[in-house]
């Protein structure tokens, strides 16, 4: 069996942003469920937060590819 441990490392690193994105959308759904008229106000905020959390996973991906094999 051969391979690269970087791959496992990236998989582990992706857990953090995954939890973050889950929390953000959970909060968004909660907010809309409690106050449906706030939906359009909350959507850009939720997507902004999602994008910021996701950036960490994307960094990991890029670092995985530029790291020496």
């Amino acid at each position: 069996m051969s391979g690269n441990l970087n791959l496992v490392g990236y998989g582990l690193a992706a857990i953090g942003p995954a939890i973050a994105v889950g929390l953000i959308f959970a909060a968004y759904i909660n907010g809309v469920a409690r106050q449906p008229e706030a939906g359009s106000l909350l959507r850009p905020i939720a997507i902004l937060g999602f994008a910021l959390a996701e950036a960490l996973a994307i960094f990991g991906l890029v670092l995985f590819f530029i790291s020496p094999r």
Partner: protein
Amino acid sequence: MVLAALSPVLSALPMSGEGDGHFPPEPQDFWQPLFAIPGTGFYFTRSMAAIAISAILLSWWLVRTTRNVSVVPSRGQHYTELVYNFIRNDIAKDSIGAKDFLRFVPLLFALFVFILLNNLFGIIPPIQMPTMSRVAYPIALTAIVYVVYHWVGIKKHHGIVNYIKWMIPPGLPAWLLPLVVPLELMTFFINRPLTLALRLFGNMFAGHMLLVVFIVGGWELFTSDSIGLKFVALPAWLMAVVMTLFEALIQFLQAYVFVLLAASYFSDAVSGEH
């Protein structure tokens, strides 16, 4: 028989520089030269073709649908207005504020339609290459946003010294300054452009890689010797179809996120608050 006839098509799918399919795909597969530009040593690549096509298509569409603007819109004008209103009201007005959002709308609209079309090229069959999966293109777009929000900020604060002073939150105790000042400067000068460019690049790159893995991986399974593995190819291709639909969602979302973040950076620069 049909599948055998398809095999040259399928094996050409990864479109690596070498010409034949291999698995797993690598970042080098995204460099796809079409022909050499004589005398320069440069190559005309597939993503360059895609970005040229997108520019031509967008110019044609926007000129066509806005030349004879009428109060009762034609169908084409209606769709263009739909997108324009989305950018103008839902992104620019909401995040920059009613006072001076209007001067940013042309830039935001251009960025949105340009990125959206280039992203969608990732799943439109004859092209099937998201331009932004080559990192230079998102960097170029980010450079425009970067220059604009710093320019606007410097003009708003009457000079670069005041602009940098404004970046530091007021009312901090002196012992915190050595910690906060580098962090704030990094946010404005390094983190923002870096995340903006890499987010778009990473999403398009990873998404396209995923599609290639499922499609080419399915082909690898199908052409393997074991009869059991041949059957596994079908779920793999089914997954490729599902992932293509998912990609369409991501591609729209990334165009939206890029413009939303650009708008929020402009908003920061013109608002004058921290």
